[in-house]
């Protein structure tokens, strides 16, 4: 279908964008448009205006300062994928980004747009959870930061105020022993995952000292499987511990049924991913494989 009629505004600065957002309460921000335009074409959204922030230089750039990686909101998926800085400072994002849609969509889609859209099947919100990212937002009252675990509040819902703009995402650069894993299962490469897992942890003396398992496409938001992770802490992800974690996953996830897969299938696949991803994160098991 075609999108419904709307007005189009292109502010020249971030300050102007914030002012437009206040004076147009039914407007939506347009960044890369790779989720918003499908929603408009399907008439799932009918904003009065689109405020096109896609060219604001203030929202561009990737940098590392004092051990923190800062990715500005308009960083496109294709930029993330090609960035040597991301490959080195955020291996999880580097691994995940190739699974985000297709080349012709990665060339336009942005990290800020993906996080603000909060699609439960999207890769980047799960990565933000696993990496304990901090999301920096700007509003009429100034800047504030929101922890990823507080940011995603529901199905396509976030803690972002209607008069605020997501400015950047910040994550710690990897510490000693940091390990990451990412896998998803989809019918066609680049399509929304049936189930996916973004994991971050730390290995100390051959055992997992930290582990965050962020599942996506299993509920209204990406979900941290804390019970399953607890079963693996202090272990070397041996077969017995992995089995305990797989069993505990039923306490963490209650996936929905849909056309792609039943709840039981999703839980089964989540367990398959648990074993594969956690095993891939353990140095000695990588060698054994």
């Amino acid at each position, binding site marked *: 279908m075609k999108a419904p009629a709307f007005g189009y505004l292109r502010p020249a600065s971030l300050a102007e964008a914030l002012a437009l957002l206040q004076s147009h309460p039914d407007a939506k921000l*347009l960044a890369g*448009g790779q989720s918003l335009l499908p929603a408009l074409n399907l008439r799932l959204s009918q904003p009065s205006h689109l405020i096109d922030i896609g060219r604001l230089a203030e929202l561009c750039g990737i940098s590392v300062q004092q051990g923190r990686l800062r990715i500005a909101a308009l960083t496109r998926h294709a930029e993330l994928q090609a960035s040597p800085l991301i490959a080195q400072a955020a291996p999880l994002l580097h691994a995940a980004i190739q699974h985000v849609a297709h080349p012709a969509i990665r060339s336009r889609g942005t990290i800020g747009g993906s996080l603000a859209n909060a699609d439960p099947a999207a890769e980047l919100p799960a990565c933000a959870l696993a990496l304990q990212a901090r999301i920096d937002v700007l509003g009429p009252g100034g800047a504030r930061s929101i922890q990823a675990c507080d940011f995603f509040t529901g199905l396509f819902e976030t803690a972002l105020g209607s008069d605020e703009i997501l400015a950047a995402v910040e994550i710690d650069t990897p510490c000693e022993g940091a390990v990451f894993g990412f896998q998803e299962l989809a019918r066609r490469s680049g399509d929304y995952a049936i189930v996916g897992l973004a994991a971050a942890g730390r290995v100390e003396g051959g055992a997992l000292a930290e582990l965050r398992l962020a599942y996506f496409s299993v509920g209204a938001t990406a979900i941290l499987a804390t019970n399953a992770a607890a079963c693996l802490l202090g272990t070397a992800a041996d077969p017995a511990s992995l089995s305990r974690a797989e069993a505990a996953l039923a306490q963490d996830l209650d996936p929905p049924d849909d056309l792609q897969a039943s709840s039981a299938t999703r839980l089964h696949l989540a367990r398959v991913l648990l074993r594969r991803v956690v095993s891939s994160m353990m140095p000695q098991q990588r060698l054994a494989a």
Partner: protein
Amino acid sequence: MIAITLTVNGETIAAQVEPRTHLVDFLREQLGLTGAHLGCEHGVCGACTIRVDGAIVRGCLVLAAQADGSVVETIEGLSDSGEISDLAQAFIDRNALQCGYCTPGMLIAAQDLLLHDPSPTREAIREHLSGNYCRCTGYHAIIDAVQATARAREQA
């Protein structure tokens, strides 16, 4: 209406567009460039693939208003310049099209891969074309055509 100025296949175009007009509809309806096809209109099928500022995009997921100031290239431009004549001939030789609906998008996406990776593996070709649906060929002939073009270009 919004005033836009952009370059389409090397020609500077000034036009008035409605905000809701997609770039592919602007190209097809206002400029008569009907080579980019409309399939799903929500970014799934890849039939509307075009090039904007050197990168491939979904023509149905970009507004004409967003393309103000951009350099746009369509299958007509790539054909007329001869940039993809060998790739198009390989599609014919390998029977890599039947109805032809997906073909303009396939050719632009395949050329994008060959520009960035001159000798791709079959897996890399499949991955790069994964966002372009073909309902006729079963894809094998398309992969063959892209690989044959890569090999021929390397030997040229």
